[in-house]
C-alpha cells in the first residue's frame, strides 16, 4: 500500500502540473485541443489522489504499522469508523485529504465546463496551480506514506481520545469542504479578472459555489462547537482558540461577500470590493491552515509543529502578489456602474454590514495574532483569551444583529421616512416590549455589562424575527390573494418563487435563534462536589442524587461512571450517567458528558475525577440556559442556505377568470387572506 500511495501522489503531482502549465499555454495561444488535454489531465489527477487516499485508508484498516502515519494515529482495537477518520487526524493525512477534496471540487468544475468553456478553463488552470502546491506538500514536506525506521511495532499509538467521537468523523470533512471550497470562487474570480470577463454571469456562478463553501464551513464550525460542548466537558462551546478563530475568519469575509455581491448583481456596484472579498477569503483560508500547522500560535487543536509553515508563507505571498498584479492590470473592468444615492438605502445597509463583518474579522485576527506581536515588540508573551474576544466582539455582533433587522426593510436606492415608519413601527415596538418584559422578569442590565448585552441581544433578536416574519407575511398575503390559497401556502409559494431572498430570511431567522442561545451565557451556573452513594447536590432548582458509581473494561478503553438521579420539585425527572474513559493505546483520559438538553436549559454533568483517598467520584454540574436554541438555529441556517441554492420556481400564469373563480371559492369557504388586506 505505501508504494501504491507514494506512486499515486507523484503521478497526481505530475498531472496537476501538466494541467496548470498546458492549461495556461492553451489559454494564451487559444489552443482548444491543448486545453482539452489539460482538462483531462486534471480529471486524471483526481483519480490518482483518490488512489493515494484509499491506500492510506486501507493501510489503516489493515493495521499496516510500517507506515509511520498509521503507527501514530491508529491501533488494532480502534473501531472501523475511527480508523477511517485517521485519514484526517494528523498533519500528513489531513493534507492528503485536503488535496483529495480540492481534486474533487476541481473534478466537478471540469466536468461542468460546458456552462462557460472559456471561464471554466481559466478557473481550472488556477485550481490546478493550487493543487500543485498541496501535492508538492504531501510529496515532499509532509509525506503520509513515510515508513517506520527499524523494527515495526506490534500495535499503534492509537487515535487521540478526544477525536473518538461520532461527530469527529464528520466535523473535519465539513470544515475542510468549506476551506477547500473557497478555492473554487477564488479561481472563478481571478479567472474572470484575468480574462476581463464581460457581464456579471461569472458572479452568478461564483455566488453558488461560495454558498456551497459557506454552507460546509458553517456546518463544520458548529459541528466543532457541538463537539467541544459534548466532549471537552468544560461546559462551553466556543473558547476563542486560535484554531477556532482561524475557521471564523474566512467565514466572516465569505458572509460579507454573499451580501455585497447582491449590489454587483443588481446595481453593478462594488466590483473591486467583491473581488477583494473573494481573494481575502481564499487568503484567510490558507492563512488559517498555516496557523493550524505552523506552530506560530499555541493551540490545543493545532497539529504537531513542523517545518511546513514556510511553504504556506511563500504560497500566501505568491497568491497575494498574483491577485494584486491582476487587479492593478485590469482595474478598468472593476469600475462601478452606479453610485450610492442615499444613506438610508439597501445599498448602504450592505455597505455597513460589510464594514461590521470585516471589523469583526479584523478583531478576531488581531486578538489571535496579538500574542505574537506582543512578543515581537516587548519580548514578553501575553494571553489573549475569551474575556478579550467577548468584550471586543460582542458589541460588534450586536451592531451586526441590528443591521440584520434593518437591512432587509430598506428599499434599493432610497427609503422614504414614511416607509421606514411603516416597516419599523411594529418590530421596534415588539423589541422594546421584550426589553421591558425581560427587566420586569428580573434581568438587571445595569448590574453587569454581560446582562446588558444579553438583554440587547434578545431584544434585537425579536426585532429581526419580527421583520423576517413580516416579510413572509406580506409576501404570503400577496400570493394568497393572487392564487386564492391560504396565507401559509402563499408563504411556501413565495419562498419557492424567490428561493434566494426567502432562503436568506430563513438564514437570518436561524442566526437570531443562535444569538438567543448565546444570550443565555451570562446566566450559566456550575457547581462541583464529591458524590458518594446517596449524596445530594443542589443546583438551579435541580437536586442530584448519586445512586451508584462503577467501572467497566472494553478492548479500546476502560471506564468509570456515576449513576445520578435528577429531581426537580421533589419528583424524579431523569437518570444521568457522566463517564470518564481511559484509552489504553494512547494512555490518555477523556470525559463523556451526560447532557439533559431542553429548550429552556441544559443540565450538563461531567465526571471530573475521583477522590484518591475514598474513591468517590467528583461530579461537576453545569446548568446552561438556552443552549439548545443554538443547535436549532444552526439547522435553520443550513435549511435556509439549501433553499437559497435551489433554483426559483417559475410563477404560474393565472387568467382573470381563474382568479375570479378562486376568489369566489375562497370567499365561500372563508379562506384567510383572499381579497382581504
Amino acid at each position, binding site marked *: 500500500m505505501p508504494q501504491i500511495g507514494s506512486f499515486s501522489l507523484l503521478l497526481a503531482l505530475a498531472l496537476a502540473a501538466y494541467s496548470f502549465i498546458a492549461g495556461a499555454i492553451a489559454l494564451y495561444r487559444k489552443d482548444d485541443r491543448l486545453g482539452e488535454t489539460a482538462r483531462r489531465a486534471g480529471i486524471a489527477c483526481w483519480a490518482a489522489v483518490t488512489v493515494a487516499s484509499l491506500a492510506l485508508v486501507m493501510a489503516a484498516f489493515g493495521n499496516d504499522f510500517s507506515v509511520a502515519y498509521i503507527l501514530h494515529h491508529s491501533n488494532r482495537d480502534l473501531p472501523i469508523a475511527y480508523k477511517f477518520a485517521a485519514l484526517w487526524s494528523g498533519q500528513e493525512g489531513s493534507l492528503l485529504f485536503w488535496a483529495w477534496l480540492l481534486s474533487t471540487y476541481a473534478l466537478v468544475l471540469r466536468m461542468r465546463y460546458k456552462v462557460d468553456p472559456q471561464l471554466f478553463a481559466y478557473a481550472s488552470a488556477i485550481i490546478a496551480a493550487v493543487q500543485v502546491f498541496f501535492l508538492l506538500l504531501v510529496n515532499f514536506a509532509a509525506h503520509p506514506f513515510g515508513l517506520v525506521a527499524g523494527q515495526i511495532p506490534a500495535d499503534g499509538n492509537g487515535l487521540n481520545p478526544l477525536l473518538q467521537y461520532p461527530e469527529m468523523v464528520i466535523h473535519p470533512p465539513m470544515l475542510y469542504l468549506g476551506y477547500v471550497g473557497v478555492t473554487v470562487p477564488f479561481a472563478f474570480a481571478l479567472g474572470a479578472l484575468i480574462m476581463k470577463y464581460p457581464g456579471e454571469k461569472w458572479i452568478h456562478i461564483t455566488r453558488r459555489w461560495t454558498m456551497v463553501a459557506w454552507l460546509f464551513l458553517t456546518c463544520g464550525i458548529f459541528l466543532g462547537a457541538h463537539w467541544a460542548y459534548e466532549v471537552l466537558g468544560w*461546559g462551553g462551546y466556543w473558547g476563542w482558540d486560535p484554531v477556532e478563530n482561524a475557521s471564523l475568519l474566512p467565514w466572516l469575509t465569505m458572509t460579507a461577500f454573499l451580501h455585497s455581491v447582491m449590489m454587483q448583481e443588481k*446595481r453593478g456596484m462594488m466590483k473591486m470590493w467583491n473581488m477583494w472579498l473573494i481573494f481575502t477569503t481564499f487568503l484567510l483560508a490558507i492563512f488559517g491552515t498555516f496557523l493550524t500547522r505552523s506552530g506560530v500560535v499555541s493551540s490545543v487543536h493545532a497539529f504537531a509543529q513542523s517545518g511546513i509553515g514556510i511553504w504556506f508563507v511563500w504560497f500566501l505571498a505568491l497568491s497575494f502578489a498574483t491577485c494584486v498584479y491582476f487587479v492593478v492590470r485590469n482595474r478598468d473592468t472593476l469600475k462601478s456602474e452606479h453610485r450610492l444615492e442615499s444613506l438610508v438605502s439597501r445599498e448602504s445597509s450592505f*455597505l455597513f454590514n460589510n464594514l461590521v463583518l470585516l471589523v469583526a474579522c479584523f478583531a478576531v485576527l488581531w486578538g489571535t495574532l496579538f500574542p505574537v506581536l506582543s512578543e515581537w515588540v516587548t519580548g514578553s508573551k501575553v494571553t*489573549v*483569551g475569551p474575556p478579550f474576544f467577548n468584550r471586543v466582539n460582542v458589541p460588534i455582533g450586536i451592531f451586526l444583529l441590528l443591521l440584520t433587522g434593518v437591512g432587509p426593510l430598506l428599499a434599493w436606492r432610497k427609503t422614504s421616512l414614511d416607509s421606514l415608519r411603516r416597516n419599523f413601527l411594529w418590530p421596534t415596538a415588539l423589541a422594546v416590549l421584550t426589553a421591558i418584559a425581560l427587566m420586569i422578569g428580573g434581568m438587571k442590565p445595569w448590574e453587569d455589562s454581560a446582562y446588558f448585552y444579553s438583554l440587547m441581544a434578545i431584544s434585537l433578536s425579536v426585532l429581526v424575527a419580527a421583520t423576517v416574519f413580516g416579510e413572509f407575511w406580506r409576501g404570503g398575503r400577496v400570493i394568497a390573494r393572487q392564487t386564492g390559497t391560504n396565507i401559509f401556502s402563499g408563504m411556501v409559494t413565495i419562498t419557492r418563487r424567490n428561493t434566494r431572498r426567502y432562503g436568506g430570511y430563513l438564514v437570518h431567522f436561524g442566526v437570531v435563534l443562535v444569538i438567543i442561545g448565546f444570550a443565555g451565557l451570562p446566566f450559566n451556573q456550575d457547581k462541583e462536589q464529591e458524590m458518594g452513594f446517596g449524596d445530594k447536590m443542589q443546583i438551579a432548582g435541580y437536586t442530584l442524587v448519586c445512586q451508584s458509581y462503577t467501572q467497566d473494561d472494553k478492548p479500546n478503553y476502560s471506564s468509570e461512571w456515576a449513576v445520578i438521579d435528577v429531581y426537580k420539585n421533589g419528583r424524579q425527572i431523569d437518570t444521568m450517567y457522566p463517564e470518564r474513559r481511559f484509552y489504553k493505546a494512547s494512555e490518555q483520559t477523556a470525559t463523556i458528558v451526560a447532557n439533559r438538553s431542553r429548550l429552556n436549559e441544559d443540565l450538563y454533568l461531567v465526571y471530573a475525577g475521583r477522590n484518591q483517598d475514598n474513591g468517590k467520584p467528583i461530579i461537576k454540574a453545569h446548568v446552561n440556559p438556552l443552549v439548545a436554541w443554538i443547535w436549532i438555529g444552526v439547522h435553520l441556517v443550513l435549511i435556509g442556505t439549501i433553499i437559497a441554492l435551489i433554483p426559483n420556481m417559475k410563477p404560474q400564469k393565472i387568467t382573470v377568470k381563474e382568479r375570479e373563480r378562486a376568489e369566489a371559492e375562497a370567499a365561500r369557504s372563508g379562506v384567510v387572506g383572499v381579497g382581504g388586506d
Partner: protein
Amino acid sequence: MRRRRQREVEWWEWEETRVRRAIVRRQITRASHLALIALLAMLFLGADTDARFNMLGHKLMCMCGCGQVLLECNHVGCAYSDRMRNELMAAMERGDSDSLVLQSFVQKYGNTVLSAPTTTGFNRVAWIMPFAVFGAALALTVWLVRMWKARAVAQPVEGPKLDAPELDGLRKKARQETEF
C-alpha cells in the same frame, strides 16, 4: 438716583438667584455623590466571596497548557487548576486586593497567566486597535456614502428621449433591481 437704586435691587435679586442656584446645584451634587457611594457600597457589599472568586478566576488562565480559563479547566487529572484555585482562594482569604492577587499570579506564573491583556503599556494597543479600526472604517463609510450621494446629485439630468424598446429594457432592469 432712582435708576441706580433699581439697578442695585436688580443686582441683589440676580445675586440671590445665583446663590440659591449654586446651593441647589451643590445639594444635587452632594446627593448624587451620596447615591453613587451608596450604589458602590451596595455593589461591593453585594459582591460576596463566591462572586469575587468567580470574577478573579475568569481573569486567570489555567497553566497546564489546555488554553482554558482557570475556572473552566476541567482537564482530567490537571495538575495545575486545583492548585491554582487553592492559591486564589488563599489569597482572597488573606484579604489581598484584586490587583494584588492578580499581581502575585503574574509573578509566579508570568504574564501569560492573565486571560486578557492588561490596559497598560503596549497591551493597551490590543484593546484600542479594534475599536479604532471600527471608528475609522465607520467614518470612511459615511464619508464615502456622502461623497457618492453628492456626486449623484450633481450629475445633470437629461430629458427622456426613449423609444418603446428602450423603455421596455428599463422596465425590465427596474424589475430586476427591485426583485430583492
